[in-house]
């Protein structure tokens, strides 16, 4: 604001006040008066100035406006859903978090689901909640893609005004600031002139839309890109990988950067028809054969890693603690097309091959390599064979296949089969090992998986342990169980009588945990209805 032009007299007054009228003599009109009058006269004058200045204030000049945000054409949220979002966002993590979780739903954990559902409906975010939404996404990287997708163009506009929200400009999700993938002119321009993050996002978007066009785009500037950038760009070819990519990837095998070479080889090995896959198949096949009786497998690991192998991505030096030959073998087997083996091993099916005994302790090494191959080539038949029956005693033990690898194998199976396998696993082995496996199952859990989890929780309660031993699974169940399961859980929310052999007080804690579970499921059902506009 600007002040009317009486500043000269005012400054005089301020100086007099600072130094004191005894020293300065006060305002001129006070000359000849007593010392006390001089001070009073100064205050009179200052009061006049103060009120005059305030009464005369005028607005200052307007700065350049920030410019309008891009319009958001999506429809507005239903009112109830808007209120729900405000609630979810007001429950900030860390604030007032006790050691025990009590019986009330953990709202922050429901935010990702809410955002995913809102994005499916295609709603626009309410502007007044954007700051809270950006703050939430700032603290949680996993929230960023759905939160920014939902937040839309106005959030990007807002993020440009506040440095705390810079991350939103770096992690632009598809659609908001990128050109449409079939707008060749704009795509070409952004690809040639954009910042690295924009280019990565652009390549990803184009690849998802038209795989061929994305590879051609990448090839056009390939030789001028920096090595780190080449690696990132190459990585985005995982989406929509196809045989048409082979010539380009084959050239990348001679790249200057070793990391780029390794990644290219890995991508090629996921294309069973590629020349690299064929070369790997021939190399692997010389190491593995049926024994003389044709009832078991013998392994003769490679004796050297020749330059051809190295060019095809085989790393010559093993990590500490691994034998050289075993290391080479595992790399050959994981890169060879799985279709090689039935042919090579007497026309057996994957299940029959996995069941064959392997000589000289090679089984662990060989099966682990096949697991990686099945995951890389997304081969459900091999995955099924390697997983085995969920209830088999070896499934929970420290076998050849670790839980992490099993989780990866499961993700190659169709959703229903995946849930069925995990349900079988839980029924046979309980919940203690199930967390990772549950993580790859589709949400909400379909039957029989949901029932198996609830039954297993019930068994764990009856066994007299404390619920926090299962807090991971409980948390997952709150987020992933079908809300329809709430009715069946109702009977578990009562506090049972204390049992003599149980842990003291466990019954009450279990009741509380089940109350939270039921409460969360109900809340999820309500959230879904709200977003559908049913409330």
């Amino acid at each position, binding site marked *: 604001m600007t002040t009317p032009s009486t500043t000269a007299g005012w400054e005089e007054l301020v100086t007099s006040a600072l130094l*004191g009228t005894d020293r300065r003599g006060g305002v001129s009109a006070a000359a000849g008066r007593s010392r006390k009058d001089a001070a*009073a006269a100064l205050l009179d004058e*200052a009061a006049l100035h103060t009120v005059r200045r305030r009464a005369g204030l005028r607005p200052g000049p307007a700065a350049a406006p*920030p410019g309008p945000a891009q319009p958001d054409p999506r429809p507005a949220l239903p009112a109830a859903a808007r209120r*729900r979002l405000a609630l979810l966002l007001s429950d900030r993590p860390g604030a007032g978090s006790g050691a025990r979780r009590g019986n009330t739903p953990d709202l922050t954990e429901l935010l990702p689901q809410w955002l995913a559902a809102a994005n499916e409906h295609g709603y626009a975010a309410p502007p007044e909640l954007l700051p809270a939404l950006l703050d939430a996404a700032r603290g949680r990287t996993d929230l960023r893609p759905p939160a920014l997708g939902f937040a839309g163009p106005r959030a990007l*506009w807002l993020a440009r005004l506040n440095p705390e929200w810079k991350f939103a400009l770096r992690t632009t999700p598809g659609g908001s600031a990128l050109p449409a993938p079939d707008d060749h002119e704009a795509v070409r321009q952004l690809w040639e002139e954009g910042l690295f993050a924009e280019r990565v996002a652009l390549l990803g978007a184009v690849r998802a839309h038209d795989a061929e066009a994305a590879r051609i785009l990448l090839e056009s500037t390939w030789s001028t890109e920096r090595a780190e950038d080449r690696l990132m760009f190459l990585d985005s070819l995982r989406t929509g990988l196809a045989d048409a990519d082979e010539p380009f990837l084959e050239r990348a095998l001679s790249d200057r950067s070793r990391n780029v070479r390794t990644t290219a080889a890995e991508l090629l090995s996921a294309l069973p028809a590629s020349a690299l896959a064929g070369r790997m198949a021939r190399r692997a096949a010389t190491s593995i054969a049926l024994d003389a009786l044709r009832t078991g497998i013998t392994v003769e690991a490679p004796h050297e890693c020749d330059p051809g192998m190295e060019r095809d991505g085989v790393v010559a030096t093993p990590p500490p603690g691994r034998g050289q030959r075993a290391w080479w073998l595992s790399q050959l087997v994981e890169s060879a097309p799985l279709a090689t083996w039935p042919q090579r091993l007497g026309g057996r099916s994957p299940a029959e091959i996995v069941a064959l005994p392997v000589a000289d302790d090679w089984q662990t090494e060989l099966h682990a390599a096949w697991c990686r191959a099945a995951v890389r080539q997304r081969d459900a038949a091999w995955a099924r064979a390697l997983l085995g029956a969920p209830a088999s005693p070896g499934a929970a033990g420290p076998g050849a296949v670790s839980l992490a690898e099993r989780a990866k194998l499961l993700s190659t199976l169709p959703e229903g089969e995946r849930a069925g396998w995990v349900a079988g696993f839980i029924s046979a082995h309980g919940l203690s090992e199930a967390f990772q496996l549950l993580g790859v199952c589709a949400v909400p859990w379909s039957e029989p998986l949901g029932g198996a989890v609830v039954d297993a929780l019930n068994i764990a309660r009856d066994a007299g342990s404390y619920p926090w031993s299962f807090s991971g699974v409980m948390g997952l169940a709150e987020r992933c169980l079908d809300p329809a399961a709430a009715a069946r859980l109702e009977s578990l929310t009562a506090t049972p009588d204390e049992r003599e052999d149980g842990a003291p007080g466990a019954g009450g804690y279990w009741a509380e945990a089940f109350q939270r579970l039921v409460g*969360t499921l109900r809340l999820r059902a*309500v959230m879904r209805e709200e977003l559908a506009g049913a409330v």
Partner: protein
Amino acid sequence: MTQQGVRWTADQVLALAPDAASRNAGSKLGAAGPWSEAGSSKEGAVWGLCKGSGSKPYQTVVDTAGPAYQCSCPSRKFPCKHALGLLLLWAGDGDGGGGSAMPEAEAPEWAEQWLAGRRKREQAKAAPDKGEGRPADEEAARRRAERRAERVTAGVTELEQRLADLLRGGLASAEQTGHGLGEETARRMVDAQAPGLASRVQELGMIPASGPGWPVRMLEECALLHLLDQAWLRREQLPPGLAATVRSRIGLPSSAEGPALRDRWVVLAQYDTADARLTTRRIWLYGQESGRTALLLSYGAAGRAPELALPVGLALDAELSAYPGGGHRHALGERFAPAAPAEVRPDGAPADGAPAGGVPAGGVRPGGMTTHEAAAAYGTALREDPWAESWPVTLRDVIPTPVGDGMQLADADGAGALPVVPVSRPGLWRLAAVSGGGGVTVFGECGHRGFTPLTVWADEAGGAVSLC
């Protein structure tokens, strides 16, 4: 008008929380999980049993008409997390239809007891005091007032003396030696029964530590204090309105003597300021019919939220009476219906008792003005009250524009801009987010330091968004 479907929003409920911890604790309880036997009545009462850590659930009742709260928990927070959670459950529960967690019902015995007691007290309070003041009482009251005026005059005279001493020695030396008008002078003013002067003196003591430019602020405040002293000493010569302002600035008690004005009052803003002893809540109301802007003040001891709570976006059919003097301060008189969302209006003909006349489109907000008009409005207000820090105004079509670390509100045509003095940082970003770079309507307080935005509306159809 029935109360069905006029439940509050979650934001409005959360605005009642006394602090951030209660907000969080309350929002965790805002789901069906821990609640049982919950219900609500047509009259705006809400109740439920909340399972806590003990064996006996807490009994929580809220009268949303107050709002007033009752809970059997030992918390000293007010409202407690259970009351907040219950209200959230109620707010999130839709229209109370089938399958609802809070069906409309008769209040259970334990809730009804408290509700009945409350109704009785309300009626007793609302009933006008019919007893004519006896002459002896009036005489005694007059003598008390005289004695108090004498004490204030003695205090004012002493304060004038101390101010003159301060200026003779110079503000600079006062800063160095710490012999300004500090705590001791403030206590003297409390003794003189002039709390208004006491708090001004106290604030004066904090100015030297307030950063660059403090001598200017210090002299301004000294001068205004001097002006108030002089006005008190010559109050007999002042016009009645200004004399009333002086009395209220000095801190003498006054009562809302203005005629009762019934209107549908829309809550424009509610925000709290707190010092070590007291939480002060300011609630700005706008009369849909009268077009009048009114201020309600409510106080709470430190750490407790003031009792009166009217979340932004509600409207209440009530009578207000003005306090003497030129300000906006009013007292809340009779309330004819529980506060309800401002957007919800009776269908068709106005219901019994509701003010007649249609509500203009988007009319739940005051008409706006330009930044120049706003600055002029504050300037004009100083004629009635030279001590006014700010004046409530509504800016029309202004664009929140970031400038350096701060922000200004600029007229869309670029004619002028007021610097923003924010209540809170998050509020500032909400303001920017709602604008999206376009012109918005903003209600706030325009003063000599700038404009404090309190509430924003995006467009004709948009609801009020609180910035506090």
